[in-house]
């Protein structure tokens, strides 16, 4: 039994460590690592359901004697948390929808159409990936300010829609690998360009688009700096911004701050656990890019 295990293992995994002690060490190492990873999350959750008296008791304990939902009630009563969640959802959602649509269209054009200056244009898009956000943030802020878009959804959403170079790159690479014959066949059948895009290209690049969508959504939901710069009124805050303000204002009410952290973290954890495959694929793809 052990032998076959090792043999199949040899074929699939890099190299196999056979001695039981070493294997035990590996497990210990991984378990220790996993604990280190999980501990802060656990602590966050435990703190968020602790009554004040238990937070201040020494020694700190992972066992909650009188679990309470009061921090959560406080959270939703004192700040418009629902509004913040909806803000985040709306902003991240619309950017994601637009980006996926626009980048797949652009990727289609870059991959399958010949037009003047195509490769140069694509190169410029790729080059824009290299520019760090710090360079854009000040001119971006000034433009948005002069447009009168400070504190608006427009100001939050529209500039972020421009961050699509990576998506264009990704979808171009995938569409490039679709055989031309398929497109020609559709053309002979009398499909318009847009029908080709909708009926031929889209179904074939669905997995990439799913990855891209989840990625963009995660990124936008967690985006902090842009909202921080653009938004000054309370009602327009997104969740990360609200959390940072919360930590500043109610810094000593740890239970409430942790409740806020739970609320901010939970939606993304759910998204991640549901679409794990796509997320990890996406990371590996960014790795291939280099």
């Amino acid at each position: 039994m052990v032998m076959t295990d090792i043999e199949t293992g040899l074929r699939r995994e890099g190299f196999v460590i056979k001695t039981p002690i070493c294997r035990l060490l590996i497990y210990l190492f991984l378990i220790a690592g996993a604990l280190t990873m999980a501990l802060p999350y656990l602590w966050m959750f435990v703190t968020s359901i602790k009554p004040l008296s238990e937070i201040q008791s020494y020694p700190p304990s992972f066992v909650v004697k009188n679990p309470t939902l009061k921090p959560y009630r406080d959270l939703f009563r004192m700040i418009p948390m629902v509004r913040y969640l909806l803000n985040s959802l709306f902003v991240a959602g619309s950017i994601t929808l637009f980006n996926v649509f626009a980048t797949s269209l652009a990727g289609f054009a870059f991959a399958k159409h010949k037009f003047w200056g195509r490769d140069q244009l694509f190169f410029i898009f790729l080059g824009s990936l290299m520019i760090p956000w710090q360079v854009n943030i000040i001119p971006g802020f000034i433009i948005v300010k002069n447009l009168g878009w400070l504190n608006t959804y427009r100001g939050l959403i529209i500039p972020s829609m421009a961050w699509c170079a990576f998506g264009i790159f990704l979808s171009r690479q995938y569409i490039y690998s679709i055989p031309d014959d398929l497109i020609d066949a559709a053309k002979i059948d009398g499909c318009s360009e847009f029908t080709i895009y909708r009926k031929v290209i889209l179904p074939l690049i669905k997995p990439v688009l799913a990855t891209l969508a989840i990625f963009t959504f995660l990124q936008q939901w967690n985006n902090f700096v842009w909202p921080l710069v653009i938004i000054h009124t309370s009602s327009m805050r997104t969740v990360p911004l609200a959390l940072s303000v919360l930590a500043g204002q109610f810094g000593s009410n740890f239970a409430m701050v942790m409740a806020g952290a739970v609320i901010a973290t939970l939606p993304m954890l759910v998204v991640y656990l549901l679409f794990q495959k796509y997320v990890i694929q996406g990371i590996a793809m960014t790795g291939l890019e280099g």
Partner: protein
Amino acid sequence: MGNTILYVVGCVPIGICISLLLAVAINQKIKFKNFFKSIFFLPTVTAIVAVSVIWKWLYAGEKYGLLNFLLIKFGGQPIDWMASPTWTLPSIIIMSVWAGVGYNMILFLAGLQTIPQAMYEASEIDGAGFWKRFFNITLPLLKPTIVFVAMMSFIFSFQVFEQVYIMTGGQSGIGGVLNSALTIVAYLYDMGFQKFQMGYASALAYIIFLLIFMMTMLNKRLMKTNVEY
């Protein structure tokens, strides 16, 4: 600026070593592989703001902070994590390493998958032990991935901002006690959006851009000197 370099120098090597070890360990034939993968990856999908808030609480002062409690329990001295100039930057480094390990690990795993199996089988026949295989096969063949990950973490950690903003922001402005953790991007934000010296901040932005650009070019050089199979 000095702080930023210290931060990068602290963050990148430690992060790479840990995540490489994790990737090699996870690449073994082990049970609960996906479970481990998911756990290590969690911080990557968590907003860095949330991570910072959680860690601020972990680092909390003498009595209530979980980390200090653990330190005392294992016979150490409590540390004034965020309140002393010497510990502010290390605290942020530890947190960032924690948050970045999973991401790098996935990149390393992808790299490990590309190493041809035959190599290991051959070395096995030649009687190479674990360490020999690790240093003579895994590391050299993984070199492109390592260079790439090093670059990415360099660029990311060079641009560190949210952690500093959340962890040290507050009464005394960004940067912590005596500006002991004021990194270049935090400085840019402070200049541009607190003191409203947009020109100064723009100049800073271009310095950042140039530095990152130079590192990217260096990266290209390094990538070209690839190992031959």
